[in-house]
């Protein structure tokens, strides 16, 4: 009893002591639910435990679009968080909001924290760097598209389960055999635009839009109705007609169709591995996404998805110091390795990749480094560095709507993609006008 009282007194005393020092609070809004959220909270509390001056307060604000909407509303009302996790399609919108954000490079330089953009994987850093070479946001969770196959279904269809199709030609042969073996769903995909337009373009080294996929200016137009794009989407529509491709929806609905064994082949985020590992009752492997082997230079490298951390404007200098300290903490190789191995996201610095490799993690978990290998397959070109289109949340929806019309057989691929370009360009012009 006496010990308990003593402990309580000590605890409250230390509480007061902490209070007297007045910790600077840093608000961090994020969209990591479930297991990812727990891991993220751990990052924040580890940082808080490592020093006394600052306290990072991680707050879950719903899905990516929801937290972005919440932050925009909060900014308009004058209560934005210090750090905001924004998904990659929101990048251009954030970059356009010059008065609302502070470039990460500036935050780090002002606080004299070490920060070297060269330490990051080029495919990751390029996405968040402006044309002047200044890194605007801090890469946090990055993934890419991978190609998953169900090895048991391959065996059943008389295919070699160790040889995933490498090209779309091989894919078609495998699909035919899988269908013939009675597979109800042969292939599905999550994130259709990200996979079959954005990553498809990078993987085949063709532009998604002019001006280096929008990175060199807001006066960009989409170029996704090129003959190669039309051919690819027409191929998928044909697969859909043959019963080789089942459309699952615009987000990650495809994940469950693969992990339940319904679909034998699947393209989805590298981050889907954690869920599949848990649910799948069959052998599976992750592979490079297929390519068209008659396209010169393919496969190039894939591009990232996921999110980065943006520092919002209008805060006190002392708070920015804390933000810089926290970001420097997150960039440490051991922290990165911990995040990467626990979540399946890509290790975003070369140092953390090396560290993970040396730890023997990839030997024990084959496929865990597939995403990095795909992202770094070749040095990125202007077509495969990433993309930056204004209001791309809307733009991507337009593309997906047209894809849905094509896959449902309501439009042919050319007409659908022409319409996607036309409507997409209208959105780009509106963004250009609003962000002059």
């Amino acid at each position, binding site marked *: 009893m006496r010990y308990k009282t003593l402990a309580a007194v000590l605890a409250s005393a230390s509480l007061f002591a902490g209070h007297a020092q007045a910790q600077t609070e840093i608000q961090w809004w994020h969209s990591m639910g479930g297991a990812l959220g727990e891991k993220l909270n751990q990052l924040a509390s580890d940082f808080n435990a490592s020093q006394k001056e600052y306290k990072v307060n991680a707050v879950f604000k719903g899905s990516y679009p929801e937290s972005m909407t919440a932050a925009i509303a909060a900014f308009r009302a004058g209560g934005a968080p210090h750090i905001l996790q924004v998904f990659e399609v929101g990048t251009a*919108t954030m970059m356009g909001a010059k008065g609302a954000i502070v470039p990460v490079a500036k935050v780090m330089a002002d606080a004299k924290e070490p920060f070297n953009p060269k330490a990051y994987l080029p495919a990751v850093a390029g996405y968040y760097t402006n044309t002047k070479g200044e890194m605007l946001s801090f890469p946090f969770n990055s993934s890419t598209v991978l190609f998953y196959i169900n090895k048991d279904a391959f065996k059943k269809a008389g295919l070699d389960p160790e040889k995933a199709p490498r090209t779309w030609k091989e894919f078609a042969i495998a699909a035919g055999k899988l269908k013939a073996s009675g597979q109800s769903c042969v292939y599905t995909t999550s994130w259709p635009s990200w996979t079959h337009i954005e990553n498809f373009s990078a993987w085949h080294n063709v532009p998604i839009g002019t001006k280096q996929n929008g990175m060199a200016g807001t006066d960009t137009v989409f170029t996704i109705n090129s003959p190669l794009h039309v051919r690819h989407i027409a191929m998928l529509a044909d697969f859909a007609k043959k019963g080789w491709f089942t459309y699952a929806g615009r987000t990650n609905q495809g994940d469950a169709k693969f992990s339940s064994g319904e679909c034998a082949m699947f393209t989805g985020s590298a981050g889907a591995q954690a869920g599949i590992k848990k649910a799948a009752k069959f052998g599976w492997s992750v592979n490079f996404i297929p390519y068209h082997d008659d396209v010169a230079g393919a496969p190039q490298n894939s591009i990232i998805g996921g999110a980065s951390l943006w520092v919002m404007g209008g805060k006190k200098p002392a708070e920015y110091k804390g933000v810089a300290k926290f970001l420097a903490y997150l960039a440490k190789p051991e922290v990165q390795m911990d995040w990467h191995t626990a979540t399946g996201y890509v290790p975003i610095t070369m140092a953390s990749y090396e560290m993970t490799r040396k730890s023997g993690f990839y030997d024990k978990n084959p496929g865990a480094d597939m995403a990095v290998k795909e992202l770094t397959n070749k040095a990125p070109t202007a077509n495969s560095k990433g993309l930056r289109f204004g209001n791309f949340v809307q733009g991507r929806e337009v593309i997906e709507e047209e894809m849905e019309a094509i896959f449902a057989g309501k439009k042919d691929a050319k007409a659908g993609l022409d319409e996607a370009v036309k409507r997409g360009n209208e959105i780009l012009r509106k963004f250009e006008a609003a962000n002059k």
Partner: protein
Amino acid sequence: MEKRVVFRSAWLPYALLAPQILVTVVFFFWPAFQAVWFSFQLQDAFGLNTEFVGLQNFAELFRDSRYLESFKVTAVFSLLVAFFGLAISLVLATMADRVLRGALAYKTLLIWPYAVAPAVAGVLWAFLFAPSIGIITYVLKGWGVDWNWIIHGDQAMLLVVIASVWKQISYNFLFFLAGLQSIPKSLIEAAAIDGAGPGRRFWTIVFPLLSPTTFFLLVVNIVYAFFDTFGVIDATTQGGPAQATQILVYKVYHDGVKSADLGGSSAQSVVLMAIVILLTVVQFRFVERKVNY
């Protein structure tokens, strides 16, 4: 004869009205005014750049084939919801009106779905019809139907109509039942004695006498289909696939909240506001007069 309460005090009536007026001003007039104001502006997401553009947002709206398509979708959707919502509940009410034993149990069960929130109703039906795991999907697949509302627009429309109708039937049922019970039995008995069969009795006596109820429910159901089905749609199709279920009110939300296009979204809500005002005036001015009270 008019009944009128006269207040002696000059301020008391205003004071008594004040709370209600305050609520109306803050939650209805102020946002409506803001919507009108924003509809003339072009603004970036963060509100850093604002430009007055006059009627440009409206001009763009009516040039946009998608927006016109949304009108068509809304018309089809609300007609389907209102028609089936009314027809099914009328049949059920007529049946329940005739039941002698256990009537209370039937009625309670029929009223039940009204307690379910629209979003929940949507999720419920979405699960039953889910392309991979739905029970009804399983049956349909057994019959050889290619059921996947994620990609087939007409199936998605069917799904949201079913969910919305199911949710609204209880409400319509209650009013129809009350309406049926208020029809004097003597009229029906007199017709029966004159040799009119059940069908003829229904169409020539019951149905006309129910017309005030039907008219009232028609207004309520159309308004319901226009606005309250938002939850159903957001929880199931989110306007997709390829905008097949994007009704006007969902598009306002989608463009304004999800796409951060405040100007365009505000212009849409102004248009929607005009439609609703027009609809209400037309219904109460012209249709109501013809109703047999």
